């Protein structure tokens, strides 16, 4: 009887010890290489980021990027400890869940363009009492349109939701929708294919973050050198692109990035970066306190942040140490 019990006990104990060891091993947040969760597929628009990562790799930072279907899922990967660094603007996550995560580099500012069918509308005032199509409930595009409606003193009959700039652009071309907001490539597509049929409505002063890098405070504090290198390289690449957007094509060639990019998309690289740089989409200072305050105001309107934006504390959302250090080293702009 005792023998039998022991024969069962030993394998079970063995499995338990192994399990405990596995759990023990996976517990530390830091693991090499640095695991980055990117909430989108690699495309022309992410070339700048990929270049900065290559440059960081040259400085002995091992990096492993995983491309997720959406920013939300990438954020979950960081929260769950399956990734070290995420890409997105998880303000709601930080405020509501109080996850020990901080943003540390502003990758891009929101650049979207309200576009209308000129058969029906010629300006902002014509949109009073009309339907307008945005990405989704609680999205940046919805917040932009709520902000613009407030500024222009108009009220939309209703905001409808169609996810994806390319889907909305397609619906505009087919005539299914009359007014929407799209990103730069789809704005260009509409203006190119539709000619006078479409017009972009003027919009200024919407500068909130579109994407930022974030990581757990544990990772940021225990890997200062890695984070410093990453921030320095991002800042360098961003500044180079703002100086000369051609930099992207040269670096893409050097590192062999997006090697399988279809030939017809290659000519889009330079115009995209030229225009984004011109419109200020790539901040030359990685964000900083001013950008964070703009974000607070914008994301409060978007419904991502609760409470009075002026009472929110920067340090509850951002970890600006590495950015400060990088700016001290590379110069402030």
């Amino acid at each position, binding site marked *: 009887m005792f023998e039998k019990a022991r024969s069962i006990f030993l394998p079970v104990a063995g499995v338990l010890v192994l399990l405990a060891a596995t759990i023990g091993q996976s517990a530390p947040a830091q693991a090499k290489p640095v695991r980055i969760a990117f909430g989108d597929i690699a495309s022309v628009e992410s070339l700048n980021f990929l270049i900065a990562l290559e440059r960081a790799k040259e400085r002995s930072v091992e990096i492993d990027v995983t491309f997720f279907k959406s920013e939300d899922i990438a954020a979950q990967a960081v929260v769950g400890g399956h990734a070290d660094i995420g890409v997105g603007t998880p303000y709601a*996550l930080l405020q*509501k*869940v109080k996850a020990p995560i901080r943003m540390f580099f502003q990758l891009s500012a929101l650049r979207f363009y309200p576009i209308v069918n000129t058969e029906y509308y010629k300006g902002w005032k014509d949109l009073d009492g009309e339907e307008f199509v945005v990405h*989704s409930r609680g*999205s940046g595009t919805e917040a932009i349109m709520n902000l613009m409606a407030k500024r222009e003193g108009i009220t939309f009959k209703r905001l409808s939701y169609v996810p994806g700039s390319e889907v909305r652009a397609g619906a505009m071309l087919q005539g299914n929708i009359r007014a929407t907001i799209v990103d730069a490539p789809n704005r260009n597509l509409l203006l190119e294919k539709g000619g006078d049929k479409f017009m972009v409505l003027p919009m200024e002063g919407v500068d909130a973050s579109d994407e930022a890098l974030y990581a757990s405070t544990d990772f940021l504090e225990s890997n200062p050198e890695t984070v410093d290198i990453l921030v320095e390289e991002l800042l360098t690449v961003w500044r180079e692109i703002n100086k000369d957007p051609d930099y992207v094509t040269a670096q893409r060639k050097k590192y062999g990035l997006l090697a399988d990019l279809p030939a017809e998309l290659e000519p889009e690289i330079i115009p995209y970066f030229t225009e984004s740089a011109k419109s200020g989409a790539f901040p030359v200072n990685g964000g900083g306190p001013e950008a964070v305050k703009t974000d607070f105001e914008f994301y409060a309107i978007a*419904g*991502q942040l609760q409470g009075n934006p002026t009472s929110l504390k920067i340090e509850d959302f951002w970890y600006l140490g590495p950015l400060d250090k990088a700016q001290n080293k590379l110069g402030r702009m």
Partner: protein
Amino acid sequence: MTTRDFEPVGRGGPFRPLSSTAVWRLASFVLVFGAWEFAGRVPISPAFPTFGATMAALFQMTLDGSMGRAYLSTLQPLLIGLLISGVFGILAGVAMGLSRLFEFFVAPVFIVLQAAPVAALIPLITFIYGIGLTAKVIAVCILAAPVIVLNSYKAVRNASPSLIEMCRAFQGSRVQVIAKIILPDASPLIFAGLRLGIAAGFIGVVLAELLITPTGIGDLITYHRSVADYAEMYAAIFSIVAFAAITVSSLQKLETMVFRPEKKEG
């Protein structure tokens, strides 16, 4: 311990005891919800709410009407899709069962659809049918129809040959064989197919609302996830799972009651 161990408990006492199945069911609910509560309290992830918080969110969303509005929106493509799949699915299945020629042309379509990973097909639906109600109805249909069609087809094809023979021996016409023998004999399996089709329809409508345009329950899930209201997000998921499970198990009870009274629980 087996279910038999529970049988004598409380027998003959002043209260009617819970049947052993009910006890096990209750225990499994307690176990799952208890594990959920525990996992939320650990927490396994800061974004994972407890069972209690999720139920509180569900209650709140029911009170403020957002759940009701979401269901009104979700039920629209679901019911239209299920009605179309039910009517045309049974007709097509019966026709396939009765005619080899029809079977030859139509069966492969449904066999392929049943095996296909439909989530991958949904983007194709949007290319053809756009992003409105039609696309969502189609998503429900391509998930629900194959199982309804194939069950109806198998049911008709496997109708008792001796009963059919008997009907013919009594000079029954072709119409009489179909109406009085094949269809009644096939109806339990057809109904089982309908029940499975409804279960698949739930998957279809949620997939459509998550992958095409966020409306109804899909909107509640997407929106609450985007603003990090995870208790509300899980409440929406919980509600649709519970709704689907209750609907399908009620249909199963109905099926047992109407078609298989001999299997009714004691």
